[in-house]
């Protein structure tokens, strides 16, 4: 019993020693020496132990034998591996291995360019205290128009040609309905972003597709002013388009904000020769102070609270940012196109 235990113990100690010796062998010759030391048929140390098996009780012999076999095969495996490694090393030393050959890589995955833009925008606004909210893509006329101070019989309801569903509902023509849904559910202070798909009855061309991404923003609290709107969006623009970016606010009209603004940026871009130049003014979003009628429709006291809202098209921003000439490329999903925006 003790004998048996001690033989197995001895074998396991040998195993550990042998594995260390294999790792440390620095040449093919040294490795061969290790092999002979441990596995040699006559002088090998494992053989030496096995010769003592005869001293054991017959019923204990198979266990020692099995352990010895396991160790032998494990050791042989380690020897083979080490030998291969040594051979490879010597080949590369002698110039046989051409390391200019390409390495082995995995597939190149990537987010869609529009998602990429949305994520970048969200990241910046997250830094300005905003979180994300969502609403349905199929909407009621109430949320898409009326709650947003847009009577159905006013031409403003025509500005975006709406896709209707059988049964009276519609596909939202902007992400602004989420404003109302959020305000109905939450008390100020509110600072949310609503990225999502919107739909309009536009034919496909370079600058239109009947569905596209939009990103809505809404801030409602006591004391929010037009200055906060300008400051927040100018800060966003500089963080996204670069510190030298100029920002311009032009009056505009949206039924659900008043005053309303179009926001343009003029970026500084680096030319191929290293010099810098300013782009033309680029229209990047619509914005404004939330119309009191919208606050009221959502159950928020417009005398106490004010707010601002903005909306932009990440797809369009992608066109400007990446120099993509045609919105339809987003929907073709050509692998070669998508890979250009991959995350590596």
């Amino acid at each position, binding site marked *: 019993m003790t004998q048996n235990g001690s033989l197995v113990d001895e074998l396991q100690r040998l195993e550990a020693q042998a594995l260390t010796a294999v790792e440390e062998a620095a040449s093919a010759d040294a490795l061969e020496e290790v092999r002979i030391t441990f596995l040699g048929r006559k002088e090998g140390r494992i053989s030496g132990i096995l010769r003592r098996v005869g001293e054991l009780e017959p019923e204990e012999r198979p266990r020692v034998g099995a352990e010895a076999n396991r160790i032998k095969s494990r050791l042989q495996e380690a020897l083979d591996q080490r030998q291969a490694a040594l051979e490879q090393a010597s080949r590369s030393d002698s110039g046989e291995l051409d390391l200019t050959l390409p390495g082995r890589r995995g597939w190149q995955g990537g987010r869609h360019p529009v998602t990429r833009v949305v994520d970048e925008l969200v990241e910046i606004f997250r830094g300005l205290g905003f979180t994300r909210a969502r609403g349905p*893509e*199929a909407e009621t006329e109430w949320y898409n128009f009326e709650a947003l101070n847009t009577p159905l019989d006013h031409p403003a309801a025509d500005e975006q040609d709406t896709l*209707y569903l059988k049964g009276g*509902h519609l596909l939202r023509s902007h992400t602004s309905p989420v404003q109302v849904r959020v305000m109905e559910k939450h008390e100020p202070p509110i600072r949310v972003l609503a990225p999502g798909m919107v739909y309009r009855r536009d034919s496909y061309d370079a600058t239109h597709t*009947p569905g596209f991404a939009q990103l809505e923003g809404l801030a409602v609290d006591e004391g929010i*002013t037009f200055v906060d709107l300008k400051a927040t969006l100018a800060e966003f623009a500089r963080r996204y388009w670069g510190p030298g970016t100029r920002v311009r*606010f032009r009056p505009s009209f949206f039924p659900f904000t008043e005053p309303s603004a179009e926001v343009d940026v003029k970026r500084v871009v680096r030319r191929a020769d290293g010099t810098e130049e300013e782009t033309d003014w680029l229209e990047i979003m619509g914005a404004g102070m939330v119309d009191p009628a919208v606050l009221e429709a959502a159950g928020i006291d417009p005398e106490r609270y004010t707010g601002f809202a903005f909306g932009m098209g990440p797809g369009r921003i992608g066109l400007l940012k990446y120099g993509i000439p045609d919105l339809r490329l987003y*929907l073709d999903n050509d692998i070669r196109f998508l890979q250009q925006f991959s995350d590596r």
Partner: protein
Amino acid sequence: MKVSYRWLRALAPELRATPEELAERLAELGFPVEAREDLAEGLEGLVVGRVLRVREHPNADRLRLCDVDPGNGETVQVVCGAPVIVEGGLYPFAPVGSTLPGGMELRKAKIRGETSHGMLCSEKELGLGPDAGGIMELEGELEPGLSLAEGLGLNDVRLDVEVTPNRPDLLSHRGVTREVAPGGEAGLALPDIPGEDPDAARFVDQVDAVLGSREASGDGITVRIEAPERCGAYLGLVVRGVRVGPSPGWLQTRLRAAGARPINNVVDATNYVLLELGHPLHAFDLDRIRDRTIVVRRADEGETIRTLDGAERALTPEMLAICDAERPVAVAGVMGGEDSEVDEGTSDVLLECALFTPGPIRATRKALGLSTDASYRFERGVDPEGLREAILRAARVIQATAGGEVQGPIVEVRAKPFSRTEVTLRPSRVESVLGVPFSGAELASLLEPLGFQVPGLPSESREKALRVQVPGFRSWDVSREVDLIEEVARTHGYDAFPDTLGAYRPGVVPDDPLFELEDALRARLVAQGLLEAHTLAFAPEGEVELLNPISAEEGYLRRWLLPALLGRVEYNLARGNRDVRLFELGTTFRSGRAGELPRESIHLGLVLHGRRRPRHWSHADEPVEVWDLKGLLEEVVATLATDRWRVISAAEAPDGSGALPASLMDEDVSLAVVDEDGRPVGRAGRIGAGHLDLPPWAGAVWGAEVALPATPAARREVRYVPLSTHPPVDRDLALLVPCTLPVAHVLELMKREGGEHLADLQVFDLYEGEGVPEGKRSVAVRLRFQAPDRTLNDQEVDARVDHLDRQLHHEMGVAIRGRDD
């Protein structure tokens, strides 16, 4: 709105800005100029020439020789083929060296032996009209040598101003001028009408009105409003004895410059006023108005009218009609009727200027599919104050261009007189919305140039509220305090407000967990080398149908993502992109309960085709196979539901996966995802060849679609598990598993029965064939045992393996190879 730069300047004598400056100013005010068109373009170098003498060409019957004075002191000879050239007449002249709008450069030429030093031009040659027959005659007292553009009144620029739907007052030259003129409203004046007799003008301006609330009569006509809810006011005025014919040059030029087409002097006069003041007017031939009575009423069912465009139109009681004693003579606010049209035979004209309710005009315009300059303005709202001014101005233009006589009075029916709205404006509220303080006086000085009136002395105070009177032309968009605040911000200039970021309270709305789940899925799939695709929500079939789809192929909202993604596989393969690994996160739609919104669910779809790994010189290409798909699916499920959902063989899945595109998959290689309650929430597998249109070299296409949970599971909390410092004991076992028994069941049993120290269990080989009994497969597994606190000894590991052996045999009839039973 297309505006003529010259017309704007005629309305505001002080306006000195160049067209470029005006365009910039309009953009700053919120009305960007979409296009700027130089009307003189192409006419450079062409001048007004006077023909002094006309002679026969000695060598050609149809040609003549003209001596032309081009204004530079020299008389030149020009060969001309036109039949009518009047000595002393003024004509467009293209001298040698100039270029015609068509690009032809003029050189000195010999025509049948006579030298021609330039060319007299027809309308067509100048690109100004269709008339190619004769040389264009120039009107007015022009000096030879004057640039032709100036001579034709074409030294003008047409600005296409984008007017937002809240500002109908800008659909006129006067409205646009008011925004940009120095001094605003105070700097405006109506331009003189060329050729007008000052006495006649004075007389017309003094014409009186006869007023009625439902009906009024005068000057031989009667006007009655039977639908006062649709028509706030109707004014009629008669001009007798006109001579209908082409308008004089100045009027045609002005209309053309604003993008309108001249018709005849009477119609042109009404269009002139429309473009100048924004009031749509209509001119009837009075003799064709039966009983000389105008009745404004809803059309009767079955009534029809042939409108000016020649179309026969059926009217309904929802539409307002302008009728005479018997029948409709115009669709109110949209278009007049052909029967009462003014033409060459007209002698007496009845002018209409009215105020219609916008909403129903819009409905009528939509129902008839007929949008006109008039309907465009009426549905946005015309100035309720300016009706008399407009009708009188039209009468004056008619008198000046078509003759005739205005007797008056204006017959005016109006339910109640217009009174200006008064809106309170608190400086404190201005500051709380705009963030910058303004005094009462400052506010007044910003609003008054726009035509708002602020009675009382302007106050320096920032407390005292202002009472602001809204002029009629702004009554449609300004009725609340905030509407005035916008005007304050706009006229103050958005750029003048600071943009320094102040403190803010963070929002209370938590980040939506579904977005976070989408982020996690995207990150995981991107790391697995998949590219994200975007497709639109339209499909040729589905549960939710569109009322006005773009095409039949896009007539429904999609139930699944996979069909469109497979389309993207086809698209890429057709372009030689062989390795396609796409995923999409998108909304799918099912019908909702009656009257409710459709049910939306975010799905994840993914498709795979091509090689498992990018091509590399060190290994042979292998195609994607089911294990790649299943592995991805397992990763997706792990991200989605933190181990509560399972991926199983579709054969094991319960029915009821109707929301999932099971029919696309080949039955023999098909997987299902089930949620914690065993409900199917996802399908995956090899796409049946019948669902794809692929090139012959294409391989198998794999697809998966999983519905995301509406409320994502809470993220698994990560807890540290101490690492054992004691060596593990490994045991490799070869199991003989009946082919009918899912290996997953075997593995589950082993995990369950493996004891607390079973740290890991891996399948590392699968073998069927020689040496393995028929109907069985050999599954090699490696078990790793490890205890946290001690080294396990062989006996206890052996005992556990023996236990597993017995349980496998007992419960499943699975034997461990090489072990005697």
